């Protein structure tokens, strides 16, 4: 049954972001936008999370934390790259300490554009991530037989 679609829990990690997208992720959970009406909770604990929302363009040091968080999340799991930095590095793509996008290190499922990404876009992205979560669960089940 489609339980994943109805109850995805988000983990948010700021990997080298400028706070712009982070505040927008937080804002999307608060009264005006209220992600919780879709059953989405910001858990803050990787072991409870289904969706990893990453902001920022990942650097040398945060990549270890990011991978660590991803590994701690139980399957099925989805990564949402929030903001231009997480997609390509935005203005920082020429910086020496920037990897330029989350997909350089982890498989990203949904890209949310914008600098900073607007809460509406983030909500859209997360809802899209729910569908992918559901699909991943079915594939995983099929593989196990």
């Amino acid at each position: 049954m489609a339980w994943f679609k109805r109850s995805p829990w988000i983990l948010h990690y700021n990997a080298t972001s400028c706070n712009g997208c982070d505040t927008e992720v937080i804002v999307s959970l608060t009264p005006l936008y209220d992600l919780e009406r879709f059953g989405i909770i910001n858990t803050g604990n990787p072991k409870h999370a289904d969706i990893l929302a990453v902001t920022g363009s990942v650097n040398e040091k945060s990549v270890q934390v990011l991978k660590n968080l991803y590994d701690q999340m139980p399957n099925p799991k989805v990564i949402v790259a929030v903001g231009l930095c997480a997609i390509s590095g935005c203005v920082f793509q020429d910086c020496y300490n920037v990897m330029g996008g989350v997909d350089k290190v982890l498989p990203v499922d949904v890209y949310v554009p914008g600098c900073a990404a607007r809460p509406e876009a983030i909500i859209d992205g997360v809802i899209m991530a729910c569908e992918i979560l559901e699909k991943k669960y079915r594939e995983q089940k099929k593989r196990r037989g």
Partner: protein
Amino acid sequence: MARKTIIPFGPQHPVLPEPIHFDLVMEDETVVDAVPSISYVHRGLERLIEKRDFVDFVHVADRICGLCSFMHSMGYCQAVEEIMGIEVPERALYLRTIWAELSRVHSHIFWLGVAADAFGFESLFMQSMRLREAVLDVFEATTGARVILGVCKVGGVRRDIDTDTLHGIVDRLPTLKANLEEISAVFINDYSIQHRLIGVGYISKEDAYTLGCVGPMARASGLAMDMRFLGYAAYKYLDVEPIVESTGDCYARCLVRIREIFHSIDLIHQAAEKIPEGPFDLKVKGAPNGEFFSRIEQPRGEVIHYVKGNGSRFLQRFRVRVPTFSNIPAMIKALKGSGIADVPNIILTLDPCISCTER
């Protein structure tokens, strides 16, 4: 028996949306030492001056930090204008002041919300964030963006606020103020909040000065230090008063920020009354040759933008020293001896902005 344990705090932590890491050395629930480690957000944007010329670099300065975005571009532009001897039109100065004060208001309200979240007051967090949307709406109406405004440029600003819009903004402020008064009454009077904040994270006036505290952190310890007195932008035409508390604990920092919100709203009123007609930007010719330390007052305190140019279109050096960097030593001092339950409060009353800190 006191057994020493090390509790990792951050970089991913629910009460702290920003990646700073502390190794808290604990004896039971008391912190005996705190070792910060940063650079989770280090991008190295200061070296981008090699690839972007000084006009283009405003966009990078805008993105140093999402919360004080406008202040960074403003500080950078001021430094460049100072070196090049550009007289910015007065209307632009007023517009900058208005946006800067709005930024301060939204940053402080955001802080109130996150702080409420840190001491477990969920509903207050939600209400604060709801109020913050009112300010973001103003940003959206005047600049087209919510967080990163991108409206400042060398020689002025990119957009004008026409008189009707400005009046609309000013008309909206009393409602915002009334709502804020309601919320701040809770922050000031609620017993459980006082229980969490009073006497926590004390920093004396002497420590605040010698450890280099800036902004609300210094003002909460009784130092009347506010860079707006330097009279940059339109502040020289406005009545700026320092907001000082003397107790130096988390509660005092909370009070300082609440009072600053109201003061900022007052400044916006003043600026909207005095704003002159005229052009809002200036064509810029030439390139900076010289150096300047531009100091402005951000929501978190004094920020320094150092610009050095040698006459070419590309700068020789750009450096930004942000308030959080200056406040970290005092925070470490305040953390020692506190309980684990106080750690989020102490860190948050500093209002850390790690992405500016590491650039």
